[in-house]
């Protein structure tokens, strides 16, 4: 007899409502019981497209962060990156479930059975960080931008997207503070840490232009100036300079949101999707 007062005892038990073999598995719809009807006056197709794009940003970036687990400089940074990746994965699941509910596809179908050209994430999300400075530099840029975006989206016309954004904004505030403190510590640290932090920003900066490209499907817009102002404050505290120079523009007018990705993307999908594609009926 399972002791239901002990949550851990429940793990070994068979359930009639799903397949579960470990803590956190047997995933159910993250939007279970939520009214997911599209409100009148809202374009459902546009809403799905936009939720897919925001979900893909979080899914791909979360996967990239997970690759750093066991490779971070200290145990404390391992737990930080694991928690941040988990928050983003949670955001991805809700956003993909929102998009999938409208498109008639499950989160798993969207995550594991789309090809590279069908992913709508910005190219910053797929960048492969080469050192810890790039990890924290990219997290600062990504979370500053996404926090501004989620702030605007928390009053979106779709109450589900608005709720996901309001919840995510609290998490992104923590992510941004974590990243900002490391950027300041490295920028304001030794000659070597300063040089590597600046080199990381220089390498990442070309990817930032895409974040502010006009996007017809966007349901909220972010003033680039407000994001740059946040970044400038951090860079000033760190003694770093905002990089200039060339940016990675669209290719024939198309960028990440249109399914045009960098070389890094194919490798991510190969790893992320291989198990699901090898056994399409698997459950987790």
């Amino acid at each position, binding site marked *: 007899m399972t002791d239901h007062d002990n*949550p851990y005892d*429940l793990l070994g038990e068979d359930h009639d409502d799903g397949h579960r073999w470990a*803590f956190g598995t047997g995933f159910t719809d993250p939007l*279970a*019981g*939520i009214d997911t009807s599209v409100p009148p006056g809202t374009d459902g197709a546009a809403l799905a497209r936009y939720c897919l794009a925001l979900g893909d940003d979080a899914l791909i970036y979360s996967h990239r962060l997970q690759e750093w687990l066991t490779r971070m400089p200290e145990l404390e940074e391992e*737990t930080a990156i694991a*928690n941040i990746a*988990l928050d983003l994965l*949670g955001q991805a699941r809700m956003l993909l479930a929102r998009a999938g509910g409208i498109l008639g596809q499950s989160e798993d179908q969207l995550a594991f059975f789309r090809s590279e050209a069908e992913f709508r994430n910005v190219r910053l999300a797929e960048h492969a960080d080469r050192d810890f400075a790039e990890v924290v530099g990219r997290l600062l840029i990504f979370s500053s931008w996404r926090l501004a975006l989620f702030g605007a989206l928390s009053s979106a016309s779709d109450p589900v997207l608005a709720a996901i954004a309001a919840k995510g904004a609290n998490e992104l505030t923590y992510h941004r503070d974590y990243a900002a403190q490391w950027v300041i510590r490295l920028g304001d640290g030794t000659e070597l840490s300063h040089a590597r932090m600046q080199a990381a920003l220089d390498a990442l900066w070309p990817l930032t232009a895409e974040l502010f490209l006009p996007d017809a499907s966007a349901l909220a817009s972010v003033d680039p100036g407000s994001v740059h102002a946040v970044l400038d404050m951090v860079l000033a505290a760190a003694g770093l300079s905002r990089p200039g120079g060339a940016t990675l523009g669209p290719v024939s007018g198309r960028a990440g949101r249109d399914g045009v990705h960098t070389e890094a993307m194919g490798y991510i999908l190969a790893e992320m999707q291989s198990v699901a594609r090898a056994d399409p009926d698997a459950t987790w």
Partner: protein
Amino acid sequence: MVTATSPGQSAYDVAAGTPDPELPMLTIADLGILRGAESTEEGVVVTITPTYSGCPAMREIGADVRHRLMKAGFDRVTVKTQLAPPWTTDWITADGRRKLAEAGIAPPSPAPRRSGPVPVKLSTVPTDLPRCPRCGSASTTETARFSATACKSLHRCEACGEPFEAVKAL
């Protein structure tokens, strides 16, 4: 004499006793994630609010709530999610805070309430540090902003030298 407890109220009481899998000293009512339980024609509907978007404990909590209610004689149970308004650590009850401190986990300070753009934290020196839950000293340091679960951070007491966890204000 017949007690005047409604089925919805007794279902709420049963659901409220469910322990949190990651902070088992707290019930989901202590944690403030139980939004309600009502008795409907389709059985009992329990509504819970996730703590963090990716919190893996939500699945376990839902299963546990269902089992506790079924054991208490409710044969049809649905667990619903409610996202808005987002959960805040301010919803942890006074009882919950006391239980956390007794278990050596510092309870959260009041969550920051903001309107408009969120200011970025520019100091690398942590502010608003929790008191040591063991000896009560205010002289503590933050060793990591993240811990074994999304909801906690890691600290050390300068007075008694013990490490401890704190629930992050969210």
